[in-house]
């Protein structure tokens, strides 16, 4: 087979494998989910998932740690959240701060 054909095999294979990985979690038997320990951990996993995503999205570029216009943007977002601003305002303000600073050539 050509390299092109093998690339297709890898793409479809990766797709099937990913679907299977996703499906496994959805097939964990019901009774296993009643465990209070599992419920506690699942609730905390939500916190780690969201904060890890926020931290990585704010402070990394590829494999590097990087401080740029996203940092003031997230600080503004934090202040707005503290002032109980609506979700969409927080997100739009963060985008505006980062885009504005970059347009001015800062970070």
């Amino acid at each position, binding site marked *: 087979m050509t390299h092109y054909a093998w690339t297709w095999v*890898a793409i479809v294979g990766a797709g099937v494998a990913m679907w299977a990985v996703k499906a496994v979690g959805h097939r*964990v038997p019901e009774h296993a*989910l009643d465990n209070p320990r599992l419920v506690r951990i699942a*609730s*905390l996993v939500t916190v780690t998932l969201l904060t890890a*995503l926020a931290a990585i999205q704010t402070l990394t570029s590829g494999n590097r740690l990087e401080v740029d216009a996203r940092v003031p943007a997230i600080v503004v977002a934090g202040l707005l959240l503290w002032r109980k601003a609506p979700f969409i305002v927080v997100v739009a303000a963060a985008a505006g701060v980062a885009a504005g600073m970059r347009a001015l050539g800062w970070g």
Partner: protein
Amino acid sequence: MALLGLGRLTPAHHQAISVSVATGAYALSFGALSVAAGLDLWQTMALSLLVFSGGSQFAFVGVIGAGGSVAVAAATSTFLGVRNGFYGVALAPVVRPWHGPRAWWGTQVTIDESTAVALAQPEGDREARQAAFWWTGVGVYVLWNAITVAGALLGQRVGDPAAWGLDAAAAAAFLALVWPRLANRRSLTVAVVASAIALGLTPFSPAGVPIMVAAVVAVVAGWPSPRAGIRARAAGAAS
């Protein structure tokens, strides 16, 4: 207004739409990178349609672009996607029971963002959690695939989504989603330790792995039974 249903959009819908746009925009980078790595338009589209997990797709084309074998590309992609398997467990109270096409589609759109927005809704509000899961999952799927095509066609001419501040928008969206859960000290500690670990591991591990390892903090913190005194606060954390 009722026809469009816009008047009835709940906070869960607003969050789902914001996260879908901020995430979907990154498919522009993916499409351009994939073509630059030597894949053609159809292969690029197939990756977004079939694999549908950002970190895994970037890793797949990264391996190919660096001259690696297609087998290593597929294996790396799958390894990075293992965390998606855990999301099905966390989503069980939200989505079960499901059958037929719903189960097929729901499985395919089980990713970081759909899980995060669904679980960020109040624990008792199953309707909001379901809306958040489906709107975010399908929203990201549609935009991610459409914008992948645009990125692949425009190639090197695409602008950087960062110029529009979309990277900061995504970061702010995740912060806003976790915000209500940081009200008690236990969750706050878990959050700080988890983000420190995720950031500390970033220079040394492929994308996706730091998020997975950060989840170990949740396992360690959630393993012991809470003592009576902090049980009330732990229950507060869950709401």
